[in-house]
């Protein structure tokens, strides 16, 4: 799925969730529904908004992040295919198949209809100027220029491996910090909500209380934290190697 398609899906979901939140807020305001129930529904849809936004950001980061994390494989595959005498377009097609990379598939589609590699790359990456794009374009341009390119590719692969060596340590620490945070969020946030909620019920702050809804809310927050954790771990580990 392309970045534009993802963005349009996100906007559609946000509009739906904001609409529903607004709908329940209006019903609660005019007394059609109990205000405590309306408040909880508004809160739930706000959490849904937060969840889809987080997932969208992780997805976009993952799309080009995966290219970065797999760059070492792209180099190795590309070197192998150029040594074997394949054309750049064929090499891109084969790599896209093996690594299941949508970005490469789209570049190949542009190339087979007659665009040069630079044009295809500009169309696919758009205004994205990250490190993966720079590495990939260098790689392709070197491959196009024959034997000198192969030597460049060998040096570049060694440099990339050296860079990865340093990055692995850093990312491992980042992953651990992230997991620590999500474990705290996924467990202690629902616990706090439930205990405070129960105490408020006991004090009679909320007139109407729906226990099943409260249980689902705690469960939703925990599930949200862990779903994000999965994306976080994926995007972080794909930065290094995947």
């Amino acid at each position, binding site marked *: 799925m392309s970045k534009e398609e993802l963005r349009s899906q996100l906007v559609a979901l946000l509009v739906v969730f904001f609409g529903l939140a607004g709908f329940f807020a209006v019903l609660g305001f005019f007394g059609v529904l109990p205000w405590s129930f309306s408040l909880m529904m508004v809160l739930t849809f706000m959490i849904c908004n937060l969840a889809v936004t987080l997932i969208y950001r992780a997805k976009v980061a993952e799309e080009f992040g995966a290219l970065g994390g797999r760059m070492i494989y792209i180099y190795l595959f590309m070197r192998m295919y150029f040594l074997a005498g394949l054309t750049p377009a064929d090499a891109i097609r084969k790599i896209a198949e*093996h690594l299941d990379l949508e970005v490469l598939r789209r570049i190949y589609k542009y190339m087979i209809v007659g665009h040069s590699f630079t044009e295809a790359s500009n169309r696919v990456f758009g205004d994205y100027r990250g490190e993966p794009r720079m590495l990939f374009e260098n790689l392709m341009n070197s491959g196009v220029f024959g034997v000198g390119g192969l030597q460049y590719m060998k040096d570049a692969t060694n440099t990339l491996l050296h860079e990865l060596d340093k990055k692995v340590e850093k990312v491992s620490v980042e992953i651990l910090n992230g997991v620590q945070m999500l474990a705290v969020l996924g467990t202690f946030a629902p*616990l706090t909500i439930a205990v405070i909620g129960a105490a408020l019920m006991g004090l009679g702050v909320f007139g109407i209380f729906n226990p099943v809804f409260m249980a689902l809310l705690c469960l939703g927050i925990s599930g949200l934290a*862990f779903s994000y954790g*999965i994306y976080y771990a994926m995007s972080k580990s794909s930065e290094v190697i995947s």
Partner: protein
Amino acid sequence: MKEKHLRMLLALIPGTAVLALIAVAVYTGYGARNILFTARGAVITSYVVMAAFLPLGLYEYARFRYYRRMEHDAARFLSTLEASIIAGLPFFEAFYRAGEYISSFRRVVSDVYKRLIMGERFRDVVDREVPRGTTPLKLLWEYLVLLSEVGEELFASISEYSLFFSKISEFRRALETAARQALVLMALMLFSFSIMLVLVVHVFLYEMATAGWEIIKISPEVMNAIEVAFIYIIVVQSVLGGFTVSRIGGERAYYLPHMLAMGFASLTPFALVIYDVVNLAGFVSSL
């Protein structure tokens, strides 16, 4: 059956198990609401859900353990292959010899070699028979196919590729270590969360609900809702935690069995208290 289909089938088991449990509850007159939204029912449902995730977890564990061994041995396999080629053996003979020396490759190489003797093409056999699973293995098999097709022009690159594979293996090991550390962290968090919940719910809140403090009174209905939420949070945490930790190492569900085992261990204190095997509130009151 294809790997993808088997994985889908295994992923369907938890949902089917919950539906079956609800059907049994309705049929026996226990009621769907009781099995899902009461503390006693939620304990049973949670155990069933976690047990139903076990086949998927064990399958992924076994599968990736096999792939990982091959990944770690890939560099040694290429070195052995290079040695045999330098010694003057034809490519396929060298390929077979290399497989003989590296235990994780022995079976698959032997199978491929038998088919080659029967007259099949190397690429066809590899495309059809060889399970690749992970990206380094895809790269390795594609490289071997190209070696067989292109021949001597590529033989000079074997030592280079062997070096690349050993580096990649190192990086993946580093991520595995990070994943293991995260697993320990999550498991400890899960267990301490469970023990804390038992204390919070069955000592403090239970007192509020039954003894009836003057300031705060909590109805049994609220108590039940909180208990149910906490029980399901343990399930969510162990299942999604298993997937999360596995993703760090780049796998699907390698650590799911570990987290499920921790989930079982964490849920047991809850079950013991809920089913009155241990009367924690009574014990605290008697102090």
